[in-house]
């Protein structure tokens, strides 16, 4: 379990202090894939650098299985960093080393003997499907292949935790999917906990179990991905159902409700139940249904006769939907 507690990071600059993180609390259960979603400048990279112990928080703590890592120094700090793998947006492979040499680097740094290094490197290249590129140099590989090398290298020292900062942002959609599938496999087969940082919603909805939405250095919302997707107002939900943002809120004298469903509630005929119960008209203004991490998530904007609002709301809520009045 990784617990980030009241994390603050302030960068002093000549033009004044920049508050990159302003009290961030995030929990990542062991063995899960957690996403951190946020716009450019939200503080995502800063957060990850504090977790990977490359940067020291101004205050607050990063606890891994209860142990506070953010205060470590010297040999303890280096040892703790070895337990955490990092995958970078720009791959950051060494041009001077072959694929095998890059994957072997963390083992070399840890003082692993040469014979055991070779076996481990073969195993990892097999895992990422690049056994035939062993003696190639990074410049001879495509971006997707380089990122696979990056993943293999990050896993070399058998870390418990893998941190990915925009690991797919430099890749095209198809390559992105294959790298995400690889990360998912790493999580499922090796049991490695993954924290994934991204500004792309798709990345979160395809591989993450839980997510935190970072806005201006604070967590705006967090929880299981499907729940966030069903919560109007979160970046994830509004991004997933853009049609609701653009929809009409004027109901021509009728009330406008935003209704969202998750899981079982999305499978039940709630709308017809509401119509039947209220004996009034219900008009759909906009809506959609998506499958997020195996759960069906639906959002609807409907116009209801003002006399029927309270009854309709009651029926929908009883059925497990979330209802908010917009107008």
């Amino acid at each position, binding site marked *: 379990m990784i617990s980030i507690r009241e994390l603050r990071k302030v960068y002093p600059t000549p033009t004044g202090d920049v508050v990159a993180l302003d009290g961030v609390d995030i929990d990542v259960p062991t063995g899960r894939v957690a996403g951190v979603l946020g716009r450019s400048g939200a503080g995502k990279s800063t957060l990850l650098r504090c977790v*990977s112990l*490359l940067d020291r928080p101004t205050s607050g703590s990063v606890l891994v299985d209860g142990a506070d890592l953010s205060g470590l120094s010297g040999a303890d700090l*280096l*040892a*703790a*960093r*070895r337990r*955490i793998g*990092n995958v*970078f947006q*720009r791959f*950051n*492979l*060494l*041009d*001077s*080393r072959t694929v095998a040499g890059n994957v072997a*680097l*963390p083992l*070399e*740094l*840890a003082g692993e003997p040469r014979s055991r290094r070779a076996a481990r490197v073969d195993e990892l290249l097999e895992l990422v499907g690049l056994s035939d590129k062993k003696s190639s*140099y*990074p*410049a001879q590989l495509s971006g997707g292949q380089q990122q696979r090398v990056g993943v293999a290298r990050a896993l070399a*020292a058998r870390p418990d935790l893998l941190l990915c900062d925009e690991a797919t942002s430099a890749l095209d959609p198809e390559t992105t999917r294959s790298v995400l599938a690889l990360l998912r496999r790493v999580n499922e087969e090796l049991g490695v906990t993954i924290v994934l940082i991204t500004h792309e919603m798709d990345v979160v909805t395809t591989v993450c179990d839980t997510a935190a939405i970072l806005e201006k250095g604070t967590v705006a919302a967090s929880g299981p991905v499907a729940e966030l997707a069903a919560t109007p107002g979160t970046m994830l939900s509004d991004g997933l159902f853009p049609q609701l943002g653009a929809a009409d809120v004027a109901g021509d004298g009728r009330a406008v409700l935003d209704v969202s469903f998750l899981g079982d509630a999305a499978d039940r005929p709630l709308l017809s139940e509401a119509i039947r119960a209220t004996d009034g008209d219900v008009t759909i203004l906009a809506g959609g249904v998506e499958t997020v991490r195996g759960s069906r998530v639906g959002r609807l904007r409907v116009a209801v006769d003002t006399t029927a609002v309270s009854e309709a709301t009651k029926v929908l809520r009883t059925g497990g939907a979330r209802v908010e009045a917009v107008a």
Partner: protein
Amino acid sequence: MTGEGWDRWAPELWQATLETLAIVGIAGVVTVLLGLPLGVALSVTGPGGLTPSRTVSRVLGAVVDIGRSIPFIILMIAIVPFTRLVVGTTIGSSAAAVPLTVAAIPFFARLVEAALREVSPGVVDAGASMGASRRQLIVKVLVPEALPSIVAGLTVTVVAMIGYTAMAGAVGGGGLGELAVSYGYHRFETGVTWVTVAILVVVVKAVQTAGDLCARRLSHR
């Protein structure tokens, strides 16, 4: 130059060429041994380096820049006592190697510093995130990544050194420079001067070509 003259000069030219190569070779090796660590020190203590230290960086920088700004001919004379201390004499090829090395070290160190600064910070971050110690970052990440540029810098340094050996030779430092001046200039055998120049051109070209080839071999970009 007559055929008879050529027979006379040929062995001396050969001898002088070897002497020049020996001076540059020895000075070159010592320059790498001392200039590389100095360049690393300049780079890691500089702003944004692995261990920024304004004091160390300023002191080293000042020493290096003073060394680079003294004209070679003055440096040669100024360090005569040091030269005598190191090699026991102030004339001949071993005596020429000392000021040559002293002049080349700061020059090469700055080129090394520039080469190291070109290494992507992301790659250094990657190394640090794997738990590399400072020494490991230098030995396993920074220097190997900068090696093609360092080799290019060494080539530039060696070529400059070849030019300086000729200058050292003119004041008794041995090698092709001394031959060109003592015979070609003092005894009006201009043919000898031209031949030495031609040899220097060939040597410089050979060094440049070898350096380029080496840098290209080392670069896998």
